[in-house]
C-alpha cells in the first residue's frame, strides 16, 4: 500500500454547458497520506462535492494527474474503478442512502456482495463486527425506517467500514443530524481514524467539526485557499 493515498497534480474539472464550459476545479494540487482526517469546507458551488466525486471515482477529471492508492486513475477502466470503489473506498452520505426494503444488516452487507474476494459464509461475522463498531449490534434485523436519524447514519458508517476500506469519503455526514448526534457521529469517525488508521475526508459546512480534524482545506472557486 502506498503511503500517499491521493495524489492530485494540476487537476482541472470543467462541465460542458449549453452556454459554454464551466470550470469547477482549477489547477488543484492535493496529497492525502494514510491515516489522515481531513475536512474540506467551502461555500456552495465552490467545487467540494465535485472534488469528492472525483476522489470517489464517480467523476472524471478534465486534465491533470490523479493517483489513488497508487493507481493512475485516468488509465483505469470502469470495471477497475468499480473494484476500487468497492474495496478501497467507503462512502457516507448526508441523507444516509439506506435501502428502505433492506434490513440494517442487509444494508451493511451490500458492499460485501459486490466483493468477489469475500466468501458469503463470512458475511454474518463481518457485518456483526461492523455493527458492533458503531454500537448497532442490537439493530441487526431492523429496517431503516425503525431507526433514528443518528442510528441510520451509524448504519451507513458501518456499511462504509464493512470492506475495511483505505479511504472513507463523507459528504456532509452530519448535515441531517442535530448537534448532539452530529458530535456523536464525528466522535465515531475520529475513533475509527484513530484505531483503524483509516483515512477520512469529510466535506462539511460545520466549521466546528472541521476544526477538530487533523487537517483542514478550504475551497473557493475551485482552488484551495487554505491548506493547513
Amino acid at each position, binding site marked *: 500500500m502506498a503511503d500517499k493515498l491521493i495524489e492530485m497534480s494540476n487537476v482541472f474539472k470543467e462541465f460542458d454547458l449549453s452556454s459554454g464550459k464551466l470550470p469547477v476545479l482549477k489547477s488543484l494540487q492535493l496529497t492525502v497520506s494514510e491515516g489522515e482526517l481531513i475536512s474540506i469546507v467551502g461555500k456552495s458551488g465552490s467545487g467540494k462535492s465535485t472534488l469528492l466525486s472525483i476522489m470517489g471515482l464517480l*467523476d472524471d477529471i478534465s486534465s491533470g494527474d490523479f493517483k489513488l492508492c497508487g493507481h493512475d486513475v485516468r488509465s483505469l477502466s470502469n470495471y477497475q474503478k468499480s473494484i476500487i470503489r468497492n474495496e478501497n473506498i467507503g462512502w457516507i452520505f448526508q441523507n444516509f442512502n439506506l435501502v428502505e426494503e433492506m434490513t440494517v444488516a442487509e444494508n451493511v452487507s*451490500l458492499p460485501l456482495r*459486490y*466483493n468477489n474476494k469475500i466468501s458469503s459464509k463470512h458475511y454474518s461475522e463481518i457485518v456483526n463486527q461492523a455493527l458492533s463498531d458503531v454500537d448497532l449490534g442490537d439493530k441487526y434485523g431492523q429496517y431503516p425506517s425503525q431507526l433514528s436519524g443518528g442510528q441510520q447514519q451509524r448504519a451507513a458508517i458501518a456499511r462504509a467500514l464493512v470492506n475495511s476500506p483505505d479511504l472513507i469519503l463523507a459528504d456532509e455526514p452530519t448535515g441531517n443530524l442535530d448537534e448532539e448526534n452530529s458530535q456523536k457521529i464525528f466522535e465515531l469517525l475520529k475513533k475509527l481514524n484513530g484505531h483503524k488508521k483509516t483515512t477520512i475526508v469529510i466535506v462539511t459546512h460545520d466549521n466546528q467539526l472541521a476544526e477538530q480534524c487533523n487537517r483542514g482545506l478550504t475551497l473557493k472557486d475551485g482552488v484551495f485557499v487554505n491548506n493547513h
Partner: protein
Amino acid sequence: MFDLLYSFRLLKREKIQIFILAFGFAFFTAFLSFSLELGRYLLQEKPLWVQNENHYMTIGRTDINSDFTTINGHELDVISKIPQVKELSRLAVKNWNGKINGKVFNSLNLVFYQNNLNALLGLPDIFQYRDNGVYISHSFWHKNQSTINLDNNVAIEFSGTSKILKINGILPESMDRLGNTQAEIWLPYEHLSSFSGIPVLPSDSSDNDSTEGNNSLENKLKSLAIFYGVATLNQQFEHNRILDSIKQAELNNTKSEPTNFTYFEAPKQLSVVSGIEFNPSYRAIINQQFWLLLILVIGLGLLNGLNLFTISTSKLIYRQQELNLRLVLGARFSSFFHQISVEHLPLIISTLTLGWLIYAIIPLLISGNSVYAFILNSYDAGHTLLTWISLCALITIFIIICACVPLIKLFKGSHFHRSSHSTLSVRNRLYIHLNRAGQMLIAILGLTIALSLVLEEIERRNSIQFADQLHVIDVQAEQVIPLKSNLLEGELGTLNSSQMAVSISPFVMPDYDTPFLSVEGMEDSDKFVVRNVAVSENYFSLLELEFVTSFTDLGRNDIIINEAVADLLAKDGNVNALIGQDVTLAGVAIRPQTFRVKAVLKNTQHFGIFENNTPVVYTHLGKAWPFLIYQLSFFSLPDYSDALVNTIQSWLLSESIEGVIESQGSISQQLSDLDKRGNLLFWTSLVVTSLIFALVCISLFYQMMGHVKAYQVKFGTMLAIGAKTRHIAWELFKESFYTFGIVNPAVLAVIFALEPLFIKRVGQEIFSLESYLLAAFLVLTLTIMTLLVSLFRLKGKKISVLLQTNG
C-alpha cells in the same frame, strides 16, 4: 438468494402489476403454444388418408409358441377361394434402406402388396391414377411427421435401386403390425424385382393367379423370409366360422400338415381429416385465419414486452437513487444484470405456471365439443413437453431482455447524481415518450387488424341470406353416377319439384381438372378459375337466393354468375352490361362449352365455398359434366325430406348405383358445423384481440402511472407552488396528444408498407379505413381515460409524499 428475497419484498408494493404482467405473458405463452400446435396440425399437408370401413383381416400362421408367423403363397391362394373372403392381397416383407426428403432411414420394413390393395381398402376409382406410389404406415407417419414434412409430393428414394416413388397415403393404424413385423412402407408388388433381383411375372400381380403362377412366384421369392395375406370379407366377421372355413379349405386341398391360422380384426372407425386435403378454398381460409391468429399472438407478445420494458424503465428511473448507491458501493454492470434478472424470477415463475395452466385448460374447454376433438389429438404429451420447455426458455430470455434493456440504456456511461431523483435527463424523458409512442403504435395496429377481422366476419355472416330451413340430402358414390338426362326430367321425374331442388358440384381434384371461364378475345393469362355448380331450374327460388340483376328462368344454355365473377368480367363495374354476353367454360379434360349470361347472383356462401368472393357459376342440371358426377345434393322442404330419401333410395337400387345417402340436416345446421373449425381460429383470434385490448388498457395505465411516478417530484413541486391537478392534466394531455399525432402517420406508413406483405401472406386486405379510424379513436379514448385515472391516484397523495425521495 439475497436478490430473490429482496425482489419478493418489492413484490409487496407491485403485486398487482406483476400479476397483470404475468397474466399477459402467460396468455401469450399459452396462445403461442396453442397456435403452433394448431398450425402444426392444420397446416401440415398430409397425403391422402385411406378410409376403409370394411372389415379386413391379416392372415398368417401361428407356430408352436402361438406366435404369429409367415404363411406361404399357396395357402393364401386356397384361402382366397373361401366364399367369405371378398378380396385378398398377398404381402411380402423385406428390409431396405431409404431416404425421404434427404433424411436417411436404415432398415425400413417394406411391405410389397398386390395391386388389388386399392380395391381391398375400398378406395374409389378416381384415386387409381396414383397407383404407382407407396403407402406409409400410420405409426411411421406419426413418428416422423414432425421431422419429415409429408405432403402429396414427397418422394422416397431407395438405396441401391433406381426407384423414387411418391407417397400415396397413410394406411389405417390397425395395419401397422403384420404379425411380429412393424410395417413401415407399402409398395406395389411390381417393384419387388428391383429389390430382390427376381423378375416378377405379369401373372404374379394378377388377382386371379393360377396355382402354377403362385408356385413360380413362391419359388422365386425364397429369399423373402416373411409372407402374409390381407383380406376383406364378404360378410360380418365371425371369427370361428372363418377360421373353420380356412382350416377346412386347407384340409381339402392340402398337401401339407393342417395349419393353425390367426387373424387380426381391424377397428371400424378411422380418424380421417376430411375436407382439408381436397378443398382448396377451405384450406385457404384456414391458412388465412391461422396467419392472422399468429400475427395477433405475436402482437400480444410484443405488447407484453413493451409493457414490461415501459414499466422497467419507469421503475429504474424511480429507483435510480438506489441503483446509483449500489454503483457507488462497487456494483458493476454484471451485478445489475444479475440483480434485475433475479428480481424478475417471480414474474417468470408466475408466467410459466399460469401459462401452463391456461394451456392445459384450453383442451378441457373444447373437449366437450366433438367437432374440436381433433385438437386434442395434437396435444401429444412428449412433443408438447419438449416444445413447452423450449418455449419456457425463450419466454424467460424474452422477459429478461425486456427488463434489462432499459438498464443498459439508462446506466450506460451514467454517473452518480445525488439530485438525479428529482430530475430526469433528456434521454430518459425521450425513452418515456418513445415507449408511449410504441405502445400506441402497436395498439392502433393490433386493434385495426382485429377490428378488420371482426367487421369482415360480421359482413360474412350477414351475407347468408338464403332459406336455411331447407334440408339437405347428399348422395355420394364411389364411381361416376350415370345420368342419362336432366335428373328431374329423366331418372327422378316423379319428384315434386316445387318442394325440392337439386345441385351437382362436380368433384374437382386440385390437380385434376378445374374449369376456367373466359370471354371471346380474352387472353389465356386473363382466364380465371371458377367453381361450377349444376343446378335444377327451381334451385334459386327454393333456396331464396338474391340476384343483383333480374332473373326469370334458367335455360340449358344459360349461365348464372355471381358478383365475384361479374367483378372480374366487368372492368367498368357495369354488371348489367354482362347480361346476354357469351362466356366459355373449359378445362384440361372438359370440352369448351359456351353459355349465355342470364343473371348475376349476389355473392353468398355455398356448400364447399367458404368465402363470399369465390367466383362461382351455375349452369343447368342437364349440362353437368357427366364424368365428374360423384355427388348429388338434394334440397327439400322439411316435410318432404323423408319421401325424398325413399325415392332416391329406390332410384339408386334400380340403377345399381353403389352410393351412400346422407341426410345432412338443415342448411343452417350444416353451415354451423362447417364453420366450426374455421370459427375456432376466428374465436381464438377474437380472444387474443380482447386480450390485446385489455393489455393496451393496462399497459397504458401503467405507462401513465410510471410517467407520473417518474415525474412525481416535479408534479409535487408544481402542486406545492400552487398548480392545480388540472394544470398537470392539461400538460400530460398535451404531451399524449402530440405523441398520438406523431404516431398516427407512423401507423399509416406501417400499414402502407405492410399491406402488400399481408396480402401476399394472408391473401386479403386486413386493414380498412373504418377499422383504422375506430382503433385510433379507441386508443385516444383509452389514453385520456388512463391519464385521468392516474391523475386521480396522484391527487390522492399528499404533496409532502410526492416530494419525498425514495430510498
